[in-house]
């Protein structure tokens, strides 16, 4: 099949959409493989290949991500760009491909953005403090099944940045809430639960992300289907952190 890809090319401060007609595509290829086909052609003709982030190509690493026809990771729900197959497009379609856009996600090159703001949010509180050593017994700390399920649902976040890219406010609340929920509902996360909410939200705001308006674009764009309830849970923890005298 054939696709016309309008791809954002940028190497300095500004960029532009460049149109490429890509032939010889198979409907079984992933969207990233279509970019591979294009890049091989660009390399053999002495042109600069399109830069894009990717790693595992099985939807679990969070490296890939781009706006495909104006939607984060493309038109399929709960699907990363690497798992998006060309069979979801029609032969001859024109597809616009842009990088994530948000003030805290500066474009590095073409479709690659700098997401280190996410690392700073995690560094602010997305961890638990434990003495390391030999691994504890698997059943040393009982976890109620519903809590384990809630934590796992939130822990499915791969930090790809689609929530920010889709948000009309450039907010990273879904990412922050996923990380805070993943740890905050487990027994091991309790000692730092409220300081975690306070510090992660403070870092989120300091990084330049906008505030959440509960529009819900993020959860639709999220390839892991992280629910909006995580944001309410984070808000509750944050309120508690600021309304009690505890300095934890």
């Amino acid at each position, binding site marked *: 099949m054939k696709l016309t890809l309008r791809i954002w090319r940028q190497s300095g401060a500004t960029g532009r959409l460049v149109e490429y007609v890509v032939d010889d595509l198979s409907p079984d290829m992933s969207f990233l493989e279509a970019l591979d086909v294009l890049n091989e052609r660009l390399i053999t003709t002495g042109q600069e290949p399109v830069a894009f982030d990717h790693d595992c190509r099985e939807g679990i690493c969070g490296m890939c991500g781009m706006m495909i026809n104006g939607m984060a990771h493309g038109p399929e729900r709960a699907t990363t760009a690497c798992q998006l197959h060309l069979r979801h497009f029609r032969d001859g379609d024109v597809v616009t491909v842009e990088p994530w856009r948000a003030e805290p996600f500066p474009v590095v090159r073409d479709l690659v953005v700098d997401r280190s703001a996410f690392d700073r949010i995690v560094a602010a509180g997305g961890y638990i403090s434990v003495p390391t050593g030999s691994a504890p017994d698997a059943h040393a700390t009982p976890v109620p099944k519903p809590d384990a399920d809630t934590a796992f649902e939130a822990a499915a976040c791969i930090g790809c940045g689609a929530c920010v890219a889709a948000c009309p406010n450039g907010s990273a609340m879904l990412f922050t809430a996923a990380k805070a929920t993943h740890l905050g509902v487990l027994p091991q996360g309790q000692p730092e639960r409220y300081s975690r909410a306070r510090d992660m939200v403070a870092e989120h705001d300091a990084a330049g992300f906008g505030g959440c308006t509960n*529009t819900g674009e993020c959860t639709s764009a999220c390839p892991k289907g992280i629910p909006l309830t995580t944001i309410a849970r984070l808000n509750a923890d944050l309120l508690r952190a600021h309304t009690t005298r505890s300095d934890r």
Partner: protein
Amino acid sequence: MDTIGLYRTTVGKKVVMAVTGAGLLLYVVVHMLGNLTVFSGAEAINGYGRWLREIGVVWPTRVALLVCVTLHFVAAYQLTAKARKARGRYQHRRRVQGSYAARTMRWGGVIIALFVVYHLLDLTVGWLNPNGVPGEIHANVVADFRHWYVVLAYSVAVLALGFHIRHGVWSATQTLGVTTSRVIGLAVAVAICAGFLSVPFAVFTGLVS
């Protein structure tokens, strides 16, 4: 309690919006119920207005509303400014999820504020009312809603308020840490719209005269 620290966060500003929004919503509900006294005749609504003045709630309510509106607006302005700076600008962008109500919160709020100014000049001060006699609430209301363009203006404003409430109720509960069903916001909005719109349409169709 660390109020300043909380307000510095985006969530803290939203908490202010949620709490002041709840106060304004409470007022809107009472206002809507008060309006319905028009269906019991001229003396009922005029007497209700006199009674509100006699028990001395008018000015305290006005001060409280002004405080709520000011805080609501300031927080909204600050959040909007931050969001405008933060969000990306795409060549091609498609909305997937956001409801009409969610997308129109900011401009909808401005439209409601402008309507409130007109509404005060119309039915509180009386300058823009065809009858415009303070205290003659029933006569003023009837004089207003005989005109289709007044009915239209009020209808647009009430619908804008309904959309604002629909998303506002859901969003406020999220902000305060509880996820509720979006249906609750919709139900509140529909009830308030129906209550407010019943009066102009009753006058326009001659049910109340």
